[in-house]
Every structure is written in structure tokens, then in C-alpha cells.
């Protein structure tokens, strides 16, 4: 049984106003902005996060739209036909190692995750959900058609709409995870096809399946949400955010050197921006660690340097604007390279919040799921919302639930439990737990394995049964005070 904790942080949005070229998009009523963030991780890993944001000033759900330009028609019609308010789909392979890599830029559990808010006008939410998962299954060539009542839950408190929403009636929310889903090329290709330039031009040139799946972590996602059209927020625009995060282990593939370049990682270089994009930028995280500057060197020299506060840390980014003509003057392609001047021995400070989960017990009769949540903040206590979805064939005994912090019992201030029904619905457990400063909280719950009918076993049952990740939502206190600024204009790394 593979179980892992993935954390989902709903962080306060913080940013300084960034340069945007929205003006050009306004006229055409839709705009594409593409971004790539490259950040070196400790131990020689490099995380590359792509983000393609298509913003469209149209009233999608009314069904009055028939002419699609940048926004993919398949998704647009889906939103209109099924009354989708917000859609979040993530397909992930591997685990993000929060403890050593820090907070992930985009969070997703292993396997396929889909959560959708429907509009209040939808009468039969379950039917729409079923239809939606089947259509998405077709669009993304993923096994999302296996989403049914046995793995769908309606969380009451863990998820909030990320876009504009009138109410948060959680009956309109559906959440499902398929932890067994294997993500591969056949999921990447349809995802790339949704991009206006495909993989022909712009940053998407780098998305070569052969390299992307030769990595420690791969996560691709699609987010659709309504946003304010302007500051007065009188009209609604629709935003499609396609993101892809990949972590390369450059240390082991580069003969013990942590130096990397775009070509080494993707076996491609950048030659131009997507002609349809109003913004196309590459950011490289060159934040000095240990306050020693000039630890690393990037070539070619960046045109500008951008400083921002991300998750409470001051970061420095080298910026390459693919739309500026000066970039391709000297050489025909951009191959960002990073060299370490001396061996890097610094480690990322342990993130304020991280978690791990394991199953204990032996034999096939009973067992115990243990979740450890760490709060490493030196003096601040904060609450986290923990969501557990456990399939019905593991019968949870809620009376065995124990939450222990620093040797003492920690009583959750909110608890919502929906027991499973055989072959119909999974267990849903949501708890609001207060984490004291600098503490480890251990949550254990016992379960019993049910005897399945012969048709109910998954293929290759000796491989074990998968339990989906828990979801942790928290308001993490930051060392530096945060400012709430217009999110729409800010670059990728600040809007997470």
C-alpha cells in the first residue's frame, strides 16, 4: 500500500506588481502568457515549472460563445455544457519531497486528482460530475472514468473556490483522487495540444516527453476558474492555467556535477516565443544562500534581475524575456546555463509545515494509518485542516483515532466524519488540528481490511492497494509580512 502525504497549502497571496503586457491582450479579449521558472533544489535537483495562462474576457457558461481563439474549444464547451464553476485536474508521477525540496510551487498528490466546483444552477451535481470525469478521461487519455461514488467525496472545509465565487456551498464541490493512475506520454500529448502554439514554438518546445518522464517528479495540471475582468470586478473573465512541474536529478545524471543547462535537461533550447503569447519569460532562481553572493553563475547574463518575496523568503530571479528582440541578437537560441562556483553545501531551511504518512501493522486483518505533521516554526502555532479519504475496503474505526502532540492528546476543534458504505462511498474524515510551535503531531487511526469479492480486486492485487493522499490545508505564518496585491499581473512564483 503506497500512501504518501501531499500537502496543499493555501497561501496568502503576496506579490509586488510585476510588468505585464495586458494592454495588447485587452484589445483581442484573450491573452496567453507563458512562463518558466527554474529553481535549483538542494542535493542537485532542479525544478522546472511551466505555466501557460490563457485569459479570456468572455462569458463562457452562457453558451453564447462559438468562436474560440486561444482558449481550447474542448474545455470551453465542457465548462459551458456542464455548468462548471471551477475545475482543477492534476496528473502526477512521483512525490514532491517537501522536507528536502521545500514547499512545492504547485501542489498535487501522486496519481490523478480532480476537484470541481459546479455552478449553483446545476441540479444533479453527481450526474454532471460523472459526465465531466468521463469527458476529461477522453480529453486527457487518463483513467478518470474510474472516478465513481466509491472514490468521490464532498469535503466540507478543506477546499475553497480559488476564483470568483458567490457562495461556498460545498454540495457543489466534488473531489476525487486516483492514486494508482500512472502518468505518461499519452497524458502529456493531449495536454500540449491544448496550448495555442502546441509544442511548436515558445516555451512548450522544451516539453519533450522522453526527457520529462526521465525525472524524479512530474506533475501536469489544468486549472480553470473565473476571475475579475478588471479592478472594479463588474464582469467575469475565464482563466485557464496549464502548469507542468518537473524535477530533474542533475547531480546523478551530470557525473556528480550540479551544473545544468536547458539543453542538458530538456535536450532542446529556446529559439523564440510563442507568437500568440503576450508574455513569454524565463525566470531562474539565483537567490544567494548563506548571504554569500556570487555562489553561482548564469549564462547568458540576464537582462534584468527581479526580486520578490516568496513564501516568506526573499528571492532573486534572473529574468529572460523571450519577446525582447535583444535576447536573440547574439545567438540564435537561448540555452540558460548555471554553474556553481564552489561546491554548494547549503541546505534549504526546513519548511514550516511538512508531513509524512505510513501504514503500520502486519498481516491482512488489521492495520493502522499514521500521519506525522511537523510544525517547525520557532514560536508560532497555527491550525491545519486535514482531509483523509480512505476507500471503503479499509474499514476505519473512528473510535481508535488518536492525535498526539508532544506526548499529550490534542483534541481537534472541528471534526467531520462520514463513514464509508460498502461498495458505495469512501470514508471522509476532516479535522481542524492546532499545531503548537516547533512540534510533531502524530495522528493514528486503525482499520480493518474487508474481504473483497473476486471481481473487486484491482489488477495485480499483490502490488497492494492504494490509498489516496491526505490533504493538508493551512494558513502558514510567514516571517515577513505579506501584501495582498493584484494577482493577475504578477509572475508565476508569487501567485502560488
Amino acid at each position, binding site marked *: 500500500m503506497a500512501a504518501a502525504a501531499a500537502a496543499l497549502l493555501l497561501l496568502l497571496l503576496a506579490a509586488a506588481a510585476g510588468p505585464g503586457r495586458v494592454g495588447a491582450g485587452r484589445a483581442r479579449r484573450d491573452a496567453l502568457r507563458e512562463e518558466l521558472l527554474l529553481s535549483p533544489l538542494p542535493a542537485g535537483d532542479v525544478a522546472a515549472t511551466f505555466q501557460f495562462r490563457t485569459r479570456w474576457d468572455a462569458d463562457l457558461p452562457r453558451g453564447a460563445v462559438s468562436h474560440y481563439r486561444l482558449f481550447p474549444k474542448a474545455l470551453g464547451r465542457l465548462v459551458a455544457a456542464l455548468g462548471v464553476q471551477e475545475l482543477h485536474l492534476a496528473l502526477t508521477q512521483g512525490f514532491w519531497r517537501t522536507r528536502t525540496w521545500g514547499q512545492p510551487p504547485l501542489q498535487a498528490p501522486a496519481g490523478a486528482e480532480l476537484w470541481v466546483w459546479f455552478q449553483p444552477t446545476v441540479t444533479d451535481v453527481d450526474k454532471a460530475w460523472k459526465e465531466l470525469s468521463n469527458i476529461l478521461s477522453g480529453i486527457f487519455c487518463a483513467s478518470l472514468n474510474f472516478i465513481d461514488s466509491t472514490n468521490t467525496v464532498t469535503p466540507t472545509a478543506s477546499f475553497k473556490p480559488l476564483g470568483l465565487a458567490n457562495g461556498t456551498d460545498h454540495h457543489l464541490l466534488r473531489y476525487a483522487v486516483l492514486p494508482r493512475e500512472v502518468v505518461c506520454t499519452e497524458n502529456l500529448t493531449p495536454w500540449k495540444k491544448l496550448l495555442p502554439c502546441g509544442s511548436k514554438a515558445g516555451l512548450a518546445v522544451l516539453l519533450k516527453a522522453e526527457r520529462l518522464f526521465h525525472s524524479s517528479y512530474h506533475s501536469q495540471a489544468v486549472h480553470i476558474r473565473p476571475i475579475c475582468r478588471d479592478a472594479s470586478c463588474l464582469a467575469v473573465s475565464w482563466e485557464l492555467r496549464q502548469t507542468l512541474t518537473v524535477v530533474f536529478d542533475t547531480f546523478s545524471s551530470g557525473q556528480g556535477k550540479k551544473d545544468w543547462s536547458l539543453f542538458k535537461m530538456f535536450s532542446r533550447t529556446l529559439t523564440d516565443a510563442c507568437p500568440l503569447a503576450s508574455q513569454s519569460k524565463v525566470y531562474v532562481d539565483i537567490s544567494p544562500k548563506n548571504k554569500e553572493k556570487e555562489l553561482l553563475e548564469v549564462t547568458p547574463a540576464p537582462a534584468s534581475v527581479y526580486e520578490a518575496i516568496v513564501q516568506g523568503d526573499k528571492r532573486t530571479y534572473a529574468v529572460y524575456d523571450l519577446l525582447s528582440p535583444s535576447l536573440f541578437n547574439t545567438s540564435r537560441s537561448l540555452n540558460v546555463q548555471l554553474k556553481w562556483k564552489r561546491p554548494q553545501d547549503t541546505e534549504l531551511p526546513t519548511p514550516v509545515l511538512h508531513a509524512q504518512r505510513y501504514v503500520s501493522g*502486519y*498481516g*491482512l*486483518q*488489521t492495520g493502522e494509518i499514521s500521519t506525522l505533521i511537523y510544525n517547525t516554526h520557532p514560536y508560532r502555532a497555527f491550525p491545519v485542516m486535514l482531509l483523509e479519504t480512505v476507500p*471503503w475496503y479499509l*474499514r476505519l*474505526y*473512528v*473510535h481508535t483515532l488518536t492525535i498526539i502532540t508532544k506526548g499529550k492528546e490534542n483534541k481537534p476543534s472541528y*471534526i467531520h*466524519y*462520514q*463513514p*464509508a*458504505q*460498502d*461498495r458505495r462511498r469512501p470514508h471522509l474524515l476532516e479535522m481542524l488540528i492546532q499545531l503548537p510551535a516547533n512540534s510533531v503531531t502524530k495522528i493514528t487511526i486503525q482499520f480493518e481490511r*474487508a*474481504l*473483497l*469479492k*473476486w*471481481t473487486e480486486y484491482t489488477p495485480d492485487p499483490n502490488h497492494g492497494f492504494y490509498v489516496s493522499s491526505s490533504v493538508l490545508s493551512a494558513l502558514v505564518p510567514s516571517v515577513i509580512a505579506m501584501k495582498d496585491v493584484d494577482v493577475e499581473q504578477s509572475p508565476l512564483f508569487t501567485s502560488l
Partner: protein
Amino acid sequence: MAAPLVLVVLVAVTVRAVLYRSSLAAFISERVEVASPLNAWKRVVEGLALLDLGVSPYSGAIFHETPLIIYLFHFLIEYAEFVFMVSALGNLWSFSLVQFKKQKFLIELDKYAPDVAELIQTPMEMHYIPLKVALFYLLNPYTVMSCVAKSTCAINNTVIAFFILATIKGSAFLSAVFLALATYQSLYPLTLFAPALLYLLQRQFIPIKLKSKSFWLYTMQYTALYLCSLVVIICLSFFLLNSWDFIPSVYGFILSVPDLTPNIGLFWYFFAEMFEHFSLFFICVFQINVFFYTIPLAIKLKEHPVFFMFVQIAIISIFKSYPTVGDIALYMAFLPVWSHLYRFLRNIFILSCVLVVCSLLFPVLWHLWIYAGSANSNFYYAITLTFNIGQILLISDYFYAFLRREYYLTHGLHLTRQDGTEAMLVLK
């Protein structure tokens, strides 16, 4: 008789108290032979925990006890061990009061063949039957285990014991109330309606004839009492939780067998391995099995309702959907009542060996399957099957022995063929 009875009680209470305090208690309560999904103590605690969280205990697939049990333990959760001890003693009390009198034999003695005096129990032997029954029930390892595991089966057994007591004492009202309670608890005791009615009719000297008016009058009376108490109990449960959720969750669960946790019964393996489209048909077949035998037995044993009751309890415990060893202990407690049948039993030795060996093999094969991984469910089910065949043969052995004794009572012990040589009685 009082002194040995006190001794039995002391021994039984001590054994249970020691086991409650030992580390074996946790092991025993996890055993699938002792605790079924229907009556495991862990599930009762879970139901109470759900109630405390403000969730209906019946909204999940774990809790299947009746609302009265929730409320019983809602107030007595601290004294659970005490409750189970009391329920065992309640059983003892009711069994010791039951005088399985056979006045009928004394009255009809002149009808019997002259040389059968040795087949009839002397009052002295009869005197010790209650003590033996108590001994068989209280010190039976099955009962001890089910009591230590705090399986609510012990409570169901107590209700049935009270029902038997009330019936034998001739109280139609109490008999109907306890039968309704037993039916409410586990549904299957419904079939005990027939033997109870037959016994009460016999006690009232009402002939069992379909044309007799008094027969129908009494039957209607008893049925009405039974149905009224059942309706009252069910309505009471409704008002306790203010919902009808318990009906599908308790009775639907018993009848449709969705939880295939292994037990000593016949259902789990069969329905885990069956093609889905046959399962409804076979569920009907398996469930009819429990109820069906009532009709032929009622016709054959209408003169002997107590024996009928014993056979019926045994059939329930063999063919019910979630049997545990506690159910078996109930009918085994009646075996001393039929001690006069021992000379007619044909393979009691083999059958007792089968039952003992199977009981020992259950944990062994369970370990091999679940923990060692060197066996699979087929191994465990093979033992279940053998165990149940052993039980079925035991009951049919007793049944044939009973019929044979009846035959000898009327025809004399020494049968002769037409040519004068000694004959053998062959039951076909």
C-alpha cells in the same frame, strides 16, 4: 443441587474475570470465529463513537446492532464486562429453572410397549438436567470466549434463554415478548415461533387440528401477542433514534450479506467467489435454507416441541449468515437434555472429534492465510465446511436417535421379524 450450582457459577465467573484481565482478551475479541460483523464489541464501541460525533451510527457500514443495544451500552459502557457476566448468569438462571418435564410420558405410559422402562428417564436423572445444562453452557469454551470477546451474541442468547424459560413455564405473554425481542435482535429466532406455539398448545391440552376452533383461537392470540410486542419494540427503536435507518442496516445486512468478513458460516466464501449475476438467486436459496426446515420439522415433531425447538436453534446457528461460536454454544447447552438419546447415537465420537479438531484448526489456518501468507482463503473455508458438516451430522444424528427412541417406545425394544428372528431398525 444448590451447592454444585454455586460452585459452577463461581468457577465460571472466575474464569471470565481472569480472562478479561489477561492479554488473551484482546486476542480473542479479534478472532473472526468469536466476533462477527453483526455482534463484535469493537463495532459497538464504534457505533457509540459515531453517535458522539453526531453521525448516525447506521450511516456507515460498520455498525449493525439494534438501537436498543446502543442505548443499553450508552449507559452501561463502563460496565460492559459486568453486563456480559450478568447475561451469562441470566442464561444460567433461566436454564436452571427450566424443568424439562416429560409428564406426557408418565401419562401415556400405558400406551408404551412393556419392555421399554429402561428408555424412560427416572425423576432422579431428570433432577440433574438443569445443572448439567448450566454446566454445559457456562463452562463451554465457546461461551467463555464469546463472553470474553464481549460479543453481543451473549445478550441474544440470554434473550432466547428467557424465551425458552417463559415458554416452558407456560407464560404465553412473556414467551411472545421475549420471542419478539429475540427476533428484533437477530431476525432468525422468528422460526422459533412454531415450536413455542406447539409447546403452549400442548400445555393447554389443545389438540393440533386444523378444524378445531380453539386451536385457531389460541394461535391467533399468540400471534397477535407476538406481533404487537414486535411492533412496540420496533416503534420504540424508531423513537430512540428518530429514523428508520436501522431497518436496512440491521435486517437488510443480515439478509443480503454485504460484509464478507470470514466467519465459521457458509456464506462468506461462497458469495466472494460467485458470479455477480447469480448472487441474488443464491442469497435467496441460502436464506430460505434457515426458514425452510421449520415446516417439515413442525409436522414431524408436533408432539415434541422442545426437541423441535432444539433442532431449530441448531439449524439457525448453522445456516445463519453471520454465525459465531456463541450461537453454537446455545444449542450445545441443550445436549444434556437429550442424554437419554446417547444409546441411539451412531457416530457421536467421530463427530465430537471433528468439532474439536476443527475448532483447533480455525486459528491455525487463519494464521497461515492472513499472517504467514502460505495458505489462502480456500484452506480456511475447507475447515469451515468440515465444521458445519460435523454440526449438521450431529443434529441429524440426534434427530434420528430421537425418532428411533420414539419407535422403540411404541414397538418395544426387542423387535422381531415375521419369522421370529431378531430384527434391526433401519431408518430411511
